[in-house]
């Protein structure tokens, strides 16, 4: 890692960018947007977020609050956990722990910084990662391994049995930084009693582990608040998702990113619910006017990403979709499977979770069920065409949202989806949905630049006559 990079703390830098960006909207519109002339490096990403109005501002303020919480956790007597993104953070609140959600923090870095996180990605390799490891962890983790961020107190991983390269990164971090480590493990099945019991045991093991680390007990009143709030925000999220079924979709494409960001960072907290409410308001307003969620109000195509979105280009993919009047209908990262979900119909209901506030046991079971259905944890734990797995969920999303085409982008670390995407794409094509597999890396623009990827998508849309 270059010397200059060692001068500043990564999380502090990201926080100050977000902080000032979130303030920019507090003045007049002219003042806010006028300022971007002086921030050419961050302009694209921040403008794309702020163009959405209130939801974007709330999102930036939420991220700012979150990063401050991490930065001040130790001062405030709280422990910090290094977590996977698909680790519903609600449970940590009643345990008085602040999570560093690693992949979302990487996303902030790659989305905000013009030149991406190459130095940190490389740093992981310098200390021993394989170059083929997933970039989603390596990005921010490079900074944490180099001591350029808040030092976590322990590591919590919810990807074991789901994604080896992810689990390897967390396991490595625990060994390298000499931190205690707890893993949640997903068996290959989901809805049978055996799997349910496994998850619930596993989840209680997590609670005991964290209690041991913090010396504090789970606060049941706070737990109840989280349960109630989770249900409420899920309901709103699902209402937005329900609106996405309309043609044109009145939901701005980037709202999907906002939804899962809010869930990953503040699932179960009021602040995430507020963003959902704001997004619902905008979407309903569009729907009432028969407008699409795009800036022009028109919809010429509908896109669904079967895996992740592409983050490493300052959010330009969303801006580009918008410019092309393509409604972006989300990706696997939106697949949380609460009981209210519009895609959870018929037998698929079995794969959902409910929030039951009756007593401590029901609440813990609810969270265990939720945790075992987080994006990726649910879909890629077993053979891709087993019930409740990647294919079922993709088909459910396609039937619900009726995209006119599908995209796959991943990371070069993703053995799991790269291991079956060619087959999955064959299936979606058979359903009549043109599907494009893009070779690139969602968090590392050095693999393929967004410009090249964009050209490929553009060509695909033309050749397959999706955009006339």
């Amino acid at each position, binding site marked *: 890692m270059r010397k200059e990079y060692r001068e500043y703390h990564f999380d502090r830098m990201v926080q100050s960018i977000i902080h000032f960006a979130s303030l920019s909207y507090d003045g007049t519109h002219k003042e806010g947007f006028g300022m971007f002339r002086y921030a050419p490096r961050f302009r694209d990403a921040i403008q794309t977020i702020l163009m959405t109005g209130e939801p974007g501002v709330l999102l930036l303020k939420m991220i700012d609050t979150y990063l401050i919480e991490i930065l001040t956790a130790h001062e405030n007597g709280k422990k910090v956990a290094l977590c996977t993104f698909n680790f519903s953070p609600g449970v940590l609140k009643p345990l008085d722990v602040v999570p560093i959600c690693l992949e979302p923090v990487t996303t902030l870095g790659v989305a905000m910084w013009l030149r991406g996180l190459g130095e940190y990605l490389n*740093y992981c*390799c310098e200390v021993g990662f394989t170059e083929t490891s997933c970039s989603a962890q390596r990005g921010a983790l490079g900074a944490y391994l180099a001591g350029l961020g808040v030092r976590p107190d322990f590591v919590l991983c919810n990807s074991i049995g789901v994604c080896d390269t992810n689990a390897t990164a967390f396991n490595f971090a625990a060994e390298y930084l000499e931190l205690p480590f707890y893993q949640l493990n997903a068996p290959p099945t989901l809805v049978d009693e055996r799997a349910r019991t496994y998850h619930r045991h596993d989840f209680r093991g997590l609670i005991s582990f964290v209690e041991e680390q913090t010396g504090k007990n789970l606060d049941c009143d706070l737990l109840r608040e989280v349960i109630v709030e989770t249900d409420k925000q899920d309901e709103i999220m699902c209402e937005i998702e329900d609106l996405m079924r309309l043609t044109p979709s009145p939901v701005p494409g980037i709202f999907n990113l906002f939804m899962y960001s809010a869930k990953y960072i503040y699932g179960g907290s009021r602040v995430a619910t507020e963003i959902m409410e704001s997004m619902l308001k905008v979407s309903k307003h569009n729907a009432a006017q028969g407008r699409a969620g795009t800036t022009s109000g028109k919809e010429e195509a509908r896109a669904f990403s079967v895996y992740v979105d592409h983050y490493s280009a300052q959010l330009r993919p969303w801006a580009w979709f918008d410019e092309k009047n393509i409604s972006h209908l989300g990706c696997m990262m939106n697949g949380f499977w609460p009981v209210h979900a519009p895609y959870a119909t018929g037998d698929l209901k079995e794969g959902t979770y409910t929030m039951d506030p009756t007593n401590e046991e029901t609440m813990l079971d609810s969270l265990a069920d939720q945790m075992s259905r987080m994006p990726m944890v649910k879909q890629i734990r077993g053979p891709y065409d087993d019930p409740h797995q990647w294919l079922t969920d993709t088909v459910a999303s396609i039937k619900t949202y009726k995209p006119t085409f599908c995209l796959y982008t991943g990371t070069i670390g993703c053995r799991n989806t790269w291991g079956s995407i060619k087959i999955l794409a064959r299936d979606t094509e058979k359903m009549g949905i043109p599907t494009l597999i893009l070779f690139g*890396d969602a968090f590392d623009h*050095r*693999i393929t*630049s967004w410009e*090249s990827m964009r*050209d490929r998508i553009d060509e695909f849309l033309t050749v397959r006559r999706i955009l006339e």
Partner: protein
Amino acid sequence: MIVAGCDVGSLTSKALLLNDRKVLSCAIQRSVSRPEDSARRVMDQALAEASLSCDDISYVITTGYGRACIPFANDEISEITCHSRGALWLMPGIRMIIDIGGQDCKAIKLDQNGRIIKFTTNDKCAAGTGRFLEVMATVLGLSLEDLGELSSHSRNPLDLAAACTVWAQTEVIHHLNNGRPIEDIAAAVNLAMAKRVAMIANSLGMEKSACISGGVAKNSGVVAYLEKQLGVKLKKPPRVDPQAVGALGAAVIAHERVQKSREIPRPAAAEESTVQGGIESS
């Protein structure tokens, strides 16, 4: 006493003749398909330049990818060892050697006595090797030298997706089509290369006293960026071509071998046969 070192690489072959501490000649040629032919040709050139014949050579050590199948070699030694010996001979006290050859890039770390502590090489991919630059230079329609020189004129190096040579090529073409200044693209190529090499070197823990060898050392653009990435001034091998450091190291070891064998009296016949077995005239 004249000895030779011959480094048969995947892209170029190098031969160097040494008489005590004096370099008599040094030849560099493009490798051909059979390593033994490459070795013979490059040795012939080195001999011709020094006006010597095979019989004048006491001992030959080969190194490089093709080293194992060279009939005239007395012994073969890995290029890691040879590069470190060559670099040490030229630059005593050196602690880190970065060598970027045609198809691999290596970093070697030495202790204060010049012994190898650790080394590493790039993965099997061509990104981060001389091959990468060659491919990029071809796409840009530049010579390798110009690629290095041009980048110093760049005011705004572009970003290049360069984790993979194949994909990087597409990127370069993309930038060309968009009419980006060629010096900015050249700079991007060199910078991308430097970043990958820096990662390899950093994985060993960088040392202050470091040098760069191999063909890519001639690309001033890469070297400048690499120095910036590593935060260290990189020495360039004095007196010999940076591509010939491995061959030099092989010759230095050959020299030592012969000297050692002379210190211990041996039956004359055995000594003789080694010398005779050295090089056959073609």
